[in-house]
């Protein structure tokens, strides 16, 4: 094989359009991390490694034929559930939450695995019963969703459970969940809100309360929200300029390389910068919609739609929490925040998207 052939083989199952979008975000991430970490090359190197690992995973998944994906859906879900139960029983506690499981060689966070496994399982289930879908199937799919979500809420990990619940709900929605059921669910959710409130941990309640009035605890729980809003607001139309964010560089912003990296971006690049960044996200989401619309099987349609909408949800929840319209739930900004796990999960998702797109193209031709 000559170089051109190698390149061709390498790109065979990748979607160049998506790659442009993802590459742009990763570039922004590295540039931003330099500022957010006050010029720490270690951070940037770390993120480069994260990107390389995640990209490798993407490439592998993108090259997987679709029926492989369908085949691993059930074992992956069952293994994930087993691990979640394991966490609930024997998990390590860190920062007041039981999220990690020590499996001897490494410490893993099974909830991350479930971000892929849950929609995969549900899409597989709907595909299996495609011909004879009734409300009964929707109910069983909903149970498949509710079990891991309940376990993750109890860890507690509000951010992850919201994302998984959203990804599962998108599958249900796209699979034609009846409007009456959705209406009933909505009413039920409102009615059960007081009970749900009782289930929440104190710190989660605090974070939700802070959303309504962050100033009541400006130095305590509301600090994140207030400093985030100050950073975003003080950025103005054009921003303070790269490396010139005072909130960032004088340590006022908490978590500024991870969950609050958008505040760093907003402070330094302003409203105009936000428009451009939103443009990149819209570009990726738009591409996801096109892939979804063109997907050939029920399974791939549901899977692609769920991945795309979940990616959007990630973005919205993070930007919403940094700009103070959503509670601080600990969701990173997709592909911009520093962190290997979320990068890996997201890229696996995009790998699935690319696989769906490229394999059916091959089938068609």
């Amino acid at each position, binding site marked *: 094989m000559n170089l051109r052939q190698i390149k061709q083989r390498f790109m065979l199952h990748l979607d160049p359009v998506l790659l442009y979008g993802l590459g742009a975000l990763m570039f922004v991430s590295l540039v931003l991390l330099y500022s957010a970490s006050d010029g720490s090359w270690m951070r940037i190197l770390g993120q480069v490694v994260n990107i390389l690992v995640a990209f490798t995973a993407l490439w592998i998944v993108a090259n997987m034929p679709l029926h492989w994906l369908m085949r691993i859906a059930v074992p992956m879900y069952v293994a994930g559930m087993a691990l979640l139960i394991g966490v609930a029983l024997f998990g390590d506690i860190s920062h007041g939450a039981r999220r990690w499981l020590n499996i001897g060689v490494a410490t893993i966070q099974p909830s991350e695995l479930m971000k892929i496994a849950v929609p995969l399982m549900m899409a597989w289930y709907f595909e299996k019963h495609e011909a004879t879908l009734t409300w009964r199937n929707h109910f069983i799919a909903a149970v498949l969703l509710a079990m891991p979500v309940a376990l993750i809420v109890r860890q507690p990990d509000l951010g992850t459970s919201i994302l998984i619940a959203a990804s599962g709900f998108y599958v249900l929605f796209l699979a034609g969940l009846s409007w009456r059921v959705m209406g009933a669910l909505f009413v039920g959710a409102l009615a059960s809100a007081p009970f749900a409130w009782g289930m929440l941990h104190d710190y989660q309640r605090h974070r939700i309360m802070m959303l309504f009035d962050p100033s009541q605890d400006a130095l305590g729980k509301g600090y994140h929200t207030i400093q985030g809003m100050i950073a975003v*607001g003080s950025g103005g139309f054009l921003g303070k300029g790269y490396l010139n964010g005072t909130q960032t560089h004088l340590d006022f912003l908490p978590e500024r390389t991870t969950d609050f990296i958008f505040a760093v971006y907003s402070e330094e690049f302003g409203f105009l910068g936000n428009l451009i960044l939103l443009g990149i996200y819209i570009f990726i989401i738009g591409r996801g919609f096109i892939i979804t619309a063109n997907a050939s099987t029920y399974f791939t349609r549901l899977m692609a739609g769920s991945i795309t909408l979940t990616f959007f949800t990630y973005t919205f929840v993070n930007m919403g929490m940094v700009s103070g319209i959503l509670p601080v739930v600990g969701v990173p900004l997709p592909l911009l925040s520093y962190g290997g796990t979320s990068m890996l999960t997201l890229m696996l998702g995009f790998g699935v998207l690319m696989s769906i797109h490229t394999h059916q193209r091959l089938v068609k031709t």
Partner: protein
Amino acid sequence: MTRKVELKDHQREIYFFRLRLFLGLGFVAVMLFILLLRFFYLQVIRHDYFETMAESNRIYVVPIVPNRGVITDRNGIVLARNYSGYTLEVTPEKVPDMEAAIAEIGKLVEIKPKDLRRFKKLMSERRSLQTLPIRTRLSDDEVARFAAQRYRFPGVEIKARLFREYPFTDVTSHLLGYIGRINQQEIDELEEQEQATNYMGSDYIGKTGIEQRYEKEMHGITGFEQVEVDAGGRAVRMLSRTSPQSGKNLTLTLDAKLQEIAVQAFGDYRGALIAIDPNNGEVLAYVSKPGYDPNLFIDGIDSESWDALNNSPDVPLNNRALRGQYPMGSTIKPFMALAGLHYKTRTPGYSIGDPGYYTLQGSRHQYRDWKVGGHGRVDMFKSIQVSCDTYYYGLAIELGIDRMHDFLEQFGFGKKTGIDLEGEVSGLLPSTAWKMKRYQQVWYAGDTVSAGIGQGYHLVTPLQLAFATATLANDGVAYRPHLVKEIQHAANEVQTQPQPLFTLDIPPEDLDLVKRAMVAVTQPGGTAVGASMGASYSIAGKTGTAQVIGMKQGEKYNANKISEYNRDHAWFIAFAPADKPRIALAVLGENGGHGGSVAAPIARKVLDYYLLGKVPTPLKKSDVKPGVEID
């Protein structure tokens, strides 16, 4: 059939899926639009607000306290100064166990019970997050000892500061006043005057005296340093600096040496003395005895010292010169004589035969002269020289109280002089209208009789009497008494010279007669015999005795029989040299008995020093024989 249905379902299913997907797209669009609106709101609409928040996050404004103006006397002797020193200061919020901390600090730095009492008083009055001094004036040794152990005491720190000091302590206490820690009421006042920013770093404010009256001038303008800080509050760099402007220095009209001599001249007597330059109103000496040590008040006085001052029978905190109100006694007579001449009820040559008492027509009540048997024939000159009461009983009746009131008012009696100190009282100059308003009673002739010799309702402050004496000495041209000669100013600023407050229209021959009689007072045959004995200049004076308790008809005043605090007050007013006065004064010896024996010698010492530079020996109570029956 089945197949057909399946195909149909498939197409329908694709249709429904795309519909759902389209709805999803709509959902995404709506939510992104909400985000966009939120960004627009934060970054464009509310940008100014958040910009300010970010700035106040990162910028600390550190006030730089200006140096307070220094006070000197007319010759440059320092009366109030600043010195730099170390204090040990505590922020109570940062100290978990105060008792234990104090006990530990006490092992390194000596903390006297007095310091502790003062600290506890400050604790009860403090504002939040204020640092309070637990020890002032640390020695270099103590600073070094504490600094080495500093880490053990969170919330306790050594501060280098400027301290105020009054080197003359009780000698100048009543006129200088003192500064003290700012209290809540003063904060409110400062806020009302929009001065709060200027006092951001200031701990002290003038509380009384010159320190209070000239607070604005002496405080100066606070400077500011803008410092960029990080989230931990550590200063990263300085952004800008506005230097403070030191307070202005004051030069007083006071002569510190004269003041000291005047205070010493009182010996252990209580009382007051005001000496004024009649040619311009400059106050040369301002004594209220006893004084107190103003240095005690600066960092909050401890309760024991406070109780001692507050409960002393000598009331050292009372500013007698400014706020003490006394009957003026016979010192009224020169002014009464001028009134008699003015209203033509008396000519200089008119004389009375004094039998030693005065009776009103149709009454048998005898108003006694101080001299049993009377002074014989008495004209106006002699009436002042020997202080004949009978002469003035009759004159008062013929003038009537309202004409007396109108004439005396011109000299400033019954009104504040307007000296540059806070808290002056106006004394009391009675009239028929006043009595009706005050007591709803008509004025009796008997009231007038005693008013004629300065007894009864009529009350003056020592300052008022000194001011009237100065006006008389300066032939009716009055200058407002003032303590500040000059406020430090730029070279190109022109200081205004004092202008006459008013000029009384008194014929020169009237003034000449009264002044000659007042000179005679201090010479053989006068009531203050010996006041000018051996003096190389001529002294015009007048004695006075102010009754503290009334005498029954026929009762004899015996100083030895009454408790010290009920004895008569001694007055002496004087100016010298008589022909061209350079100094006029009023002396009050509280419970000192007769003016000639106690007050006049004090006055003489002041005059001797001011005019001749002579330093006298102090007066002792044992030197004065009480109960001498002359007025």
